[in-house]
Every structure is written in C-alpha cells, then in structure tokens.
C-alpha cells in the first residue's frame, strides 16, 4: 500500500482497509518512512462481551515519499547522486569568475538526467498495456516535465544571471523547449499540398513569430502562393532585417537598442503606409513586430499561458529587459488570462521565480510537487551559487539541510537505495550524523558482505558505537546458528570482552563434552587477539598445551600447564580437567614434573577438594538437602591423580638426587 506524499500542508487521510479496527489502531515504526499499522486489541472486558477474537490479523505496511523508488526514477536518483557529489567537491575548487560556468554545467547535468528520465517514462508509458500503469507513468512524466520547466527558468534567472539582451534570448530558448504546439501545427500544415489552405497555417506562422523563431516563420511564408507579391516581399524583408542580439559579436546593448528602434520604426511606417492593408494576416504579424498590446490579447490562445505571452511581448516591446525588471511585466499578462485567481500552482511557482523570491519557489514546489528530489537538489545548487542566504527555519537547521534530510530519508527507507542516501546525510553538517546513526542501525544485515559494507560506512565516519553494534549483531547471529568460529571472529573485531569470555566458555564446555577442540584453524592462529579476555587467553593457551603435547614437547607442555594453574588463569571448574591432562605426563616413562612442580600440583588438588568441602559444609549448615558434591567418577579421578602425584613425587626426588650426585 502506498500513499502519495502530502500535496497540501493539511494532513492527508489514508483509509486502511479491513474491519478489524474497531478497537483502534496501533503502529510501530519501520525503517525510515514506514509504519506497520495493525488493529488494536480489545480490552479483556470488551472481549468477553463480543466473544470473538479469531479474526484474520493483518499488518499493513504504510510508506510515504515512495515516488523515487520505481525503476525509471531510480536511474535519476543514482545519476543525480553523482552530480551532487561532484558539486560538493567542486566547492573547494575555483573561486570567483571561473565558478559560474562550472555551476551552470552542473545545472545542465541535472537537467540532462531529468530529460533522460522523462524520455524513459514516455517510452515506458507507450510500451505498457495496463491502463493503471500507463496512467502512473504519464503522471510521473508530467510531473518531471513540470520540474524541468521550473528548473530551466531558475537556471536562467538564478544561476546564469545574465545581463539584459542575452536574457531574452535564453528565455526564448526556454519557450522553444517547452511549447511545441506551433511546431506541431507547422508539421501538420506542411504535410498538405497547399499548406496555406489549412486553417492552421497562419497560426503556425504566428506561433513562430511569437517565439522569435524568425527563420522558421520566413520559411513558412515562402510557401505561400502569393510570396511574389509586394506585401509578402516587404514582410519577408522586415523579418530578415530584424536585429537579433547575439552572444559573440560583442555589441553593446545601446548599439543593439539603436538598431532595434530603427528597425521597429520602419515596421511602424510600413504598417501605417498600409503595405499590408489587403493582407489581414500579414498585418497581424506586423502588429506583433511593433509590439502592439492589442494583438497579443487577440492571440492569447496561441500563447497558451501568461508567461509565454510575457516573453513574446517583451521580445517586441523591451528586448533588452533585465532579469530584475521581469516582475513588472507579469501582471498585464496574468490579467489577460483571467487575473490572479486563475493562476495555477505551477504558474505561481514560476511567478515567484520571476519575482526573485527563491524561498517562495522552494516552498511552493515542496508543497505542490510531491517530490523531494527537485527541491533538495535545486536548493543545494542555489546554495552553492550563493543565492541562498542562510535562512534559519523555526525547526531544524537551515532550509538546504532540511530538504536534503527529507530527500535522504526517503532514500534511506528503501531497501536498496539506502547507499545513495548516505552521501546526502554526509553533507548535512548539523543533523546528518544523527540521522545516519539512527538509520544505519536499522539496516537489515542479510549477509556478511552487506555487514562489511555497513561496517565500512561506520568506520569511515568514526561511528564506533554503531560499528560495534553491527559486530555484535553478526556475532550473535553466528552464535544462534551454532557457528562459534564466526561468532568469535566478529567478536574480536569489536573487541567485546564479555562476549569473548562467553564464547571462550562455550568452546571449553564443548571441549569437556567431546574431548575435542573444534575450529582449530581459528584457535591455533589467535595470536595477540587472545589477550582480549582472560578466558580467551586461557582457551588459547590451553589449546597451545595440547599442541605441544601432541608434538611431544613434554617439557614445554608441562610448564605451560603448570603456569595455567598457578597463575589462576584457569577457571576452578576446569582444574580437574587440567589435572587429568597432567596424568599421562605424570605417568610418563621419563620424569617430566620436578618435585617442586609436583608440590604445586598437589597444592592445587588440595585446594580444589578443600573448596569443595567448605562449600559442602556451608550447604549442610543451611540444611540444604540435595547438595551435589563431586560425582563418583570425579572422586575416582581425583584419587587417581593423587596416586599419580605421589608416585611422581617419589620418582622426581630420586631422579633429582641422582642428577645432583
């Protein structure tokens, strides 16, 4: 179940289907933008009255801000992430004049991936059969087209920040990309044998003229059968002579202004001379050329909307208009289309942009376009352009960070896109880290490889607590799967002393049960790591004793065994095992234990039985009946050891005496 993000600031209501919610609803948080909603349980009294409880229980998975998760937008997410990161690292690069072209390039890169996404969506829409899906792709496509429209206007106004003259050329380009109605008409018209007879012929010509596409307009006119007449030739000449502001010739605005005035005066003269009196259509074109207010109103259907009309009007009335002055030309055009009440949300965003109210642009875009991708990336770009003075919000950090966090949260909630979300959080100086710490612990670790990846993310950011918790989770998982070796290696990674002690205990218990060590490949190569906990050290050393014994190095084995006992490294309950291990050494043909060493062993044995006796007395004092002392087998073992010890002592004394003499 998916819910589109809120379009308005008021809460969005989502009905959870199912009748089982009589007793209210409960929820628990999932990862990020995800809730698990389920029916509340009735109080016991209610339950008795209704007498029913055996109804199918559903858990509803509710998510929001999911519109960046589908196949086509995922490409956009990943490609724009690259651009975002390059933009962030660029920050420390060139300063001053060299920066602007760079930033414009970043903006173009963003728009090009956006364009690619739109093209993908169109292809997808045209290839699927299901109406539902088709509609979804179509709406997505429209959304991104809208975004592209806003972005390109913002690019012209805020990022390129062009002087008068060039600004209008850019705005015309902007129109050309987004309004292709005229072009479509022209294409239809050209398909006919006599284009001029098509009622759309003139509309197409007007469209071209309104968009300042003079070459195309002249081409259309040259198809007319009357092209040889004076009126048509005069119009063609006018159009040909129309000055256009070019980037590269280096002409000043004043120079251009003069040329323009000169040309327009000529147009006015020709109109007044009645050169086009017999050709209503040419007259209309000429009226456009001289910037006649009435004619724009007349052609308002061809302009489609107020901002198209505004640019067209400015072309013929004020071609060197400056960016900041654009806002003084909006109202008359808006009025032509029914006034402010008819301005739709998208147009409001554009209006705000023209009025240079960046915050309004972002605010309206956030609430109208159900998409954090656009506002977060645009805001970030504008921030880098220095267009965004630090704007403190009533909540959280500044606007840029707030939007980046929202966008990243959407990504972090996705099972696969979480990796893309992390760089965005990295670039939120104030709250990014806290967010990341929260999210990273909730990423499900399905395999060791994934765990290594998450671990690397933590290590690169010095998030030691989170890194340790990952190791612990993986260690516990391995333990539950009965994989002691894996568990130990995860434990060593996080240097978790308690866990290491526990695991070493497990290894020893297993050894006592089977008489065999498992996981030798790991235990034999512990090295320094065994010093992590006493119990682990004991385990490692005890295994070393076995190895020495197997290799026949009895002397080393003996002293190791003795040091394990005398240094009190061995746990008490393991002493008997150790003493039993000494048995074959005591009974060996050669004397291995010296008398001094034998005394120490005897001391240990004595201490063991003494402790046992003390405990037994204590228990009897407390009248606890079922005291379990040493089992019969253990007692037998102890007497065997005692016997071996005394025999060895005798031999050792004799042996030492012999050597001395």
């Amino acid at each position: 179940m998916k819910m589109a993000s809120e379009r308005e600031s008021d809460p969005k209501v989502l009905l959870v289907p199912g009748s089982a919610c009589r007793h209210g609803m409960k929820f628990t948080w999932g990862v990020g933008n995800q809730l698990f909603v389920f029916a509340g349980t009735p109080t016991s009294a209610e339950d008795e009255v209704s007498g029913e409880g055996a109804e199918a229980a559903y858990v509803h998975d509710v998510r929001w801000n999911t519109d960046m998760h589908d196949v086509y937008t995922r490409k956009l997410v990943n490609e724009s992430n690259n651009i975002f990161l390059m933009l962030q690292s660029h920050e420390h690069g060139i300063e001053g004049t060299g920066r602007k072209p760079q930033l414009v390039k970043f903006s173009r890169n963003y728009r090009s991936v956006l364009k690619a996404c739109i093209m993908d969506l169109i292809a997808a829409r045209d290839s699927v059969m299901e109406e539902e899906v088709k509609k979804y792709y179509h709406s997505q496509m429209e959304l991104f087209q809208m975004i592209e429209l806003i972005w390109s206007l913002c690019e012209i106004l805020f990022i390129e920040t062009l002087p008068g003259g060039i600004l209008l050329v850019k705005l015309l380009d902007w129109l050309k990309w987004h309004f292709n109605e005229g072009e479509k008409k022209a294409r239809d018209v050209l398909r006919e044998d006599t284009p001029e007879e098509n009622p759309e012929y003139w509309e197409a010509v007007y469209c071209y003229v309104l968009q300042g596409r003079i070459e195309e307009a002249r081409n259309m006119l040259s198809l007319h059968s009357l092209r040889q007449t004076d009126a048509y030739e005069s119009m063609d000449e006018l159009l040909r002579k129309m000055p256009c502001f070019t980037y590269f010739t280096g002409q000043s605005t004043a120079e251009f202004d003069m040329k323009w005035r000169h040309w327009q005066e000529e147009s006015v003269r020709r109109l007044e001379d009645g050169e086009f009196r017999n050709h209503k259509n040419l007259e209309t074109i000429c009226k456009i050329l001289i910037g006649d207010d009435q004619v724009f109103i007349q052609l308002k259907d061809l302009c489609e909307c107020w901002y198209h009309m505004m640019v067209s009007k400015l072309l013929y009335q004020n071609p060197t208009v400056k960016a900041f002055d654009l806002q003084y030309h909006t109202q008359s055009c808006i009025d032509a289309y029914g006034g402010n009440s008819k301005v739709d949300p998208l147009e409001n965003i554009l209006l705000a942009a023209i009025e240079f109210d960046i915050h309004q642009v972002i605010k309206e875009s956030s609430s109208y376009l159900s998409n954090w991708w656009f506002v977060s990336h645009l805001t970030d770009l504008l921030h880098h352009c220095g267009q965004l003075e630090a704007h403190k919000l009533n909540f959280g950090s500044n606007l840029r960070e707030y939007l980046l966090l929202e966008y990243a949260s959407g990504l972090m909630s996705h099972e696969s896109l979480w990796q893309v979300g992390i760089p965005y959080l990295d670039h939120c100086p104030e709250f990014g880290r806290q967010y990341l710490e929260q999210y990273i612990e909730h990423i499900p670790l399905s395999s060791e490889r994934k765990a290594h990846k998450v671990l690397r993310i933590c290590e690169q950011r010095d998030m030691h607590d989170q890194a340790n918790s990952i190791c612990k989770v993986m260690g516990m998982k391995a333990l539950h799967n009965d994989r002691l070796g894996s568990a130990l290696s995860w434990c060593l990674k996080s240097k978790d002393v308690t866990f290491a002690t526990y695991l070493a205990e497990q290894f020893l218990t297993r050894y006592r049960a089977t008489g065999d060590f498992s996981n030798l490949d790991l235990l034999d190569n512990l090295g320094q790591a065994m010093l992590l906990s006493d119990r682990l050290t004991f385990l490692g050393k005890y295994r070393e004793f076995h190895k020495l014994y197997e290799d026949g190095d009895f002397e080393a084995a003996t002293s190791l065994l003795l040091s394990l006992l005398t240094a009190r490294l061995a746990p008490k309950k393991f002493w008997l095992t150790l003493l039993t291990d000494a048995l074959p050494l005591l009974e060996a043909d050669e004397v291995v234990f010296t008398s001094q060493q034998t005394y120490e062993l005897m001391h240990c044995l004595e201490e063991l039985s003494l402790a046992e006796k003390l405990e037994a007395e204590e228990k009897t004092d407390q009248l606890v009946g079922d005291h379990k002392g040493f089992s019969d087998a253990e007692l037998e073992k102890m007497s065997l050891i005692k016997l071996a010890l005394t025999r060895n002592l005798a031999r050792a004394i004799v042996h030492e005496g012999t050597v001395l003499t």
Partner: protein
Amino acid sequence: MAEVNAKFISQKISKIRWRPTSQKGLEQSDTFVTGSWDNGAANKVCLWTQAEGEKEQLNFSVSRQQPPESGPRLLCEVLHCGDVTDIQFFNHENILVASSTGQVNLYKHFKNSQTLGVAQSWHVHKNKQSPCPCTSVACRGQDVVTAGEDGRLNILAIGQQAPVRSIEKADSCSINGVNYYKHYEVITVNSSGQLKVYDLRQPEDEPSRIFLLTGERIPLHCVDTHPSQPHIVATGGQDGVLCIWDMRQEKFPVTLLDAHAADMWEVKFHPRYPDNLFTCSEDGTVWHWDVTSVSHTRTPAQSQGTPGSVQSRTVHHLPATTQPKPSGSNPWLTIDASKHRIEVTNLMHGSNFLPINTLDIESNTVICGGDSEAIYVIPNLVIR
C-alpha cells in the same frame, strides 16, 4: 585516459561476467551477465549484449556525447531468489548462480525464445536458524565447487541432485571465495585472513595447507589464480591490500601491495595477458596493474595516473631455494625488488563515488558494476 561508458539499470550489481565465446576462436565475446543484490524480492540475473541490435537504447553514457545505440542491450532476464553472490559460466549457455539464500541455480539460456530458465537448483548451504548465504562458486571442466558462510565446501555434479561430496567443517569462519587451483585442488579464502588449499582426492576433511596473513585477522574477500602459472595466487581483502602468494612457499604472502582505500571485492588476472591484473573496491575505483615493465628489463617507465604511490611491504623473505631460480621468473613474484616499475592506473577516474563490487576482463574491455546501479564498460585498454 580510458573512456568509461555507463548504463544505469536500476539495480545494484553484485556480479558481472563475460560469457565465453562459443567457438574457441579469437573473436571477443560481446555478451555478459549481471546479477543484482539487496533489492528485496526483485533481484535479477540479466543477460546483456554489446552487439548492434535493431532496437536502439536511449540514455547511455555519462558524457552523453556518444551515439545512444552503443550501449549494452538487455537480451533477457530472470528473477532470482535472494542476492546474487556469485556467477560462473559452466559453459556457453549454462550459468551457475549462487544466492544469499544458500541456493545455487543453474540457468540455461534458451536462444530461440531468448529466455533464461532454471535447469537445476541445489540448496547446499544451510544454517540452523537464518538462511546461510552461498558466497562463491567455481567450476573447472565438469566439476563444480561451492562455498558458503557456513564454512562448508560442496562438490556438485551437473545432473545430480545430491552433492558428490561435502566438507562440512572446512572452515570455522565464513568462506568468502573459492577457486580451482589445480584440477583436484581448490583454494579458499576466509573471513579470518586465511588461505587454504584442499586436495579433493584426499579422504580427510582437513585442508592440505593453510596460509595466513600476519597480525590482525583481516578478512579476505576474493581470490584469483594466475591463468598459466597456478602457483601464483592473488587475493584482496577488507583492508584493500593486494596480496600475491606463492603456493610453493610456506605460509605467508610473498608481497603485500597497499592498494585501495576500502574493501577489495574482486581481483582478476587477465586471462591471456596475465602480467595485467585488475582490482575493484568499495572505494569506487577500478585499478589496472601492469607488471610488464618488471618482467622486461626496460628502462623504468614513468607510471602515469598512478593513484597514490604504491608501497610494497615484504612480509616474508623468500628462503633461498635449492634449485637455481629460472632466469625468466614470473614478474608477480619479483615485484618487491622493482616495485617502482609496476604501472597502476585508476580506470574510473573520479566519475563514480559508490562501491564497485565486481569486474570482469576480456580482450581489452573491462566491464564492472556496483552500488551506483550502473554497468561500466571500459573499452580499448592498452594491454601489453
């Protein structure tokens, strides 16, 4: 500088493999397979071709200046249960794919219908509670060996459901990679920094030899053997260091080369020009290592585009062998003496920030992919 072409495919790539050509000819393969990971229930195995097709693909290349039809084209795809953890071509049309669910599937590519179908499936790696990922699969001739996080090795035979042999306690940690070393011997790397050799002819379950990194038990992630001199083995691990091992020596690696800044996920010798080696990493880079100048006594070539200085640490000095060293001893084993002559190039040059999980090389084209959900094709490399 090598050009890098990217195609975004909306799934994180865990493995990429060239398909071997059908005839043992000299022509270069134009088909490869990718596997995805971490995509919920929608992981896929996809077969792509570089060959010119009738249908052109839009949206290709980072720079967007290339003709759009030059990108890889999807031939067919199939949903795969769990993350794809490893892919090996058994032969031209059969693909072995390992999964994080512990399963290994044999997919058959049906050319006529252009589909992929499961020909056989083994569930060979299991844990007591949670699913146990199978981490690696290798094949040589008719033999298939799989390894998993349960530390188990399985030898499988196509057409037979039960494993031919299972070495249950092959490793106390997870086995991260397995590769054939000789016909009856396999090499494994594990998550506690050990490299083991198993002789499959022996009845015992013990490894015939254990090699290890000194010091910290740094997990090894990947292993590859030299195509013509199998006693030379390269591994990569969590610390991004490239280790070269000589299987004729004892216990420790011959050379450690400081390489990537993060986990090295795959290491590959060039199949026909093994003086060239390729590595990729969690840090988002792909490196081309070229030791041809080490083998030929040329004047030391100035290395170009070297990402940082390559430092070599000798861990273990080779004991003087009894027989005299062959005069043309392999450059990989002698780089220590002439490490300044290794040429290392970063093939991704900063166009990618997310991890690269996998790469494959054939002829002079490297393909790689990772968590940025893109296939990168790097053609026209200079291979000497």
